[in-house]
């Protein structure tokens, strides 16, 4: 039986963790962070959710199956290497687009960012699949 206090705190903490994980993912190219830590932090959030509530609701939060999330991530990471090939360069060559928004510094979006997103998803999905499977284990 879980704790009311934990559940309530979790409701407020999980969004924080997810937000933090997205920050880590996006800031990772320039500041400490990146897909790994980001994905792991998101996974930690969902894990907290699974601990405080139950696995079923945590699964619902994730929507896709954990395996699906990680497969998607891996595919994304691999696909992010293809634009390089299509543009006549090597596999995994970074290709960048610069978006100019008035009032902001130019935003650079490149395949390495997609790659990092793939990493994020894989880490999230895998960690979740392991934790969910273990938590659902009956003895």
């Amino acid at each position, binding site marked *: *039986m879980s*704790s*009311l*206090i934990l*559940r*309530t*705190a979790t409701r407020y903490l999980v969004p924080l963790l997810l937000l933090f994980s997205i920050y880590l993912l996006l800031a990772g190219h320039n500041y400490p962070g990146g897909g790994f830590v980001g994905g792991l932090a998101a996974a930690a959030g969902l894990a907290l959710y699974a601990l405080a509530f139950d696995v079923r609701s945590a699964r619902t939060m994730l929507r896709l199956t954990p395996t699906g999330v990680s497969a998607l991530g891996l595919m994304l990471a691999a696909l992010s290497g293809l634009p390089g090939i299509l543009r006549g360069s090597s596999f995994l060559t970074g290709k960048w687009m610069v978006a100019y928004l008035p009032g902001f510094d130019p935003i650079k979006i490149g395949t390495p960012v997609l790659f990092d997103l793939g990493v994020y998803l894989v880490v999230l999905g895998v960690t979740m699949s392991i934790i969910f499977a273990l938590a659902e284990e009956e003895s």
Partner: protein
Amino acid sequence: MKMLFSNVLLALIWSAMTGAFTLPNLAAGFVFGYVALLILKPLLGESAYYSKFPRTISFLAYFLKEVVVSSLRVAWDVITPTHYNRPGIVAIPLEARTDLEVTLVANLISLTPGTLSLDVAPDRRTLYIHAMFAENPDAIRREIKEGLERRLLELLR
């Protein structure tokens, strides 16, 4: 909530006007914004926001004082060689009802002197706390109900 949003917006506009998104500037913008909203009170109609703002400030002040004091007391007990404490577990009847109320009460009790929330009874009517000085459980109950819980519930309801 709408009022809080307006206040934050005003703070941002202030920062934009002054051209510096620094923390002091934002804080100043927030205060000025509150003053502006206060001025506009007749126009906007009655809102709990006007009273909640100062109450929140005063609650935070109270709470911070309690935290510091509590820490000092425990610290004192830690550095002095003898244990002055007479610990015990006390049951506190709860007025708080919603999840958030219960949780906040429990957490704040944990952060204030000499008391530590251990658990909420399954019926949510009783909070079991561990107290450092539990010679007089009734006094503890009264102190919490009159002080922390009342102030908090006023703020929340």
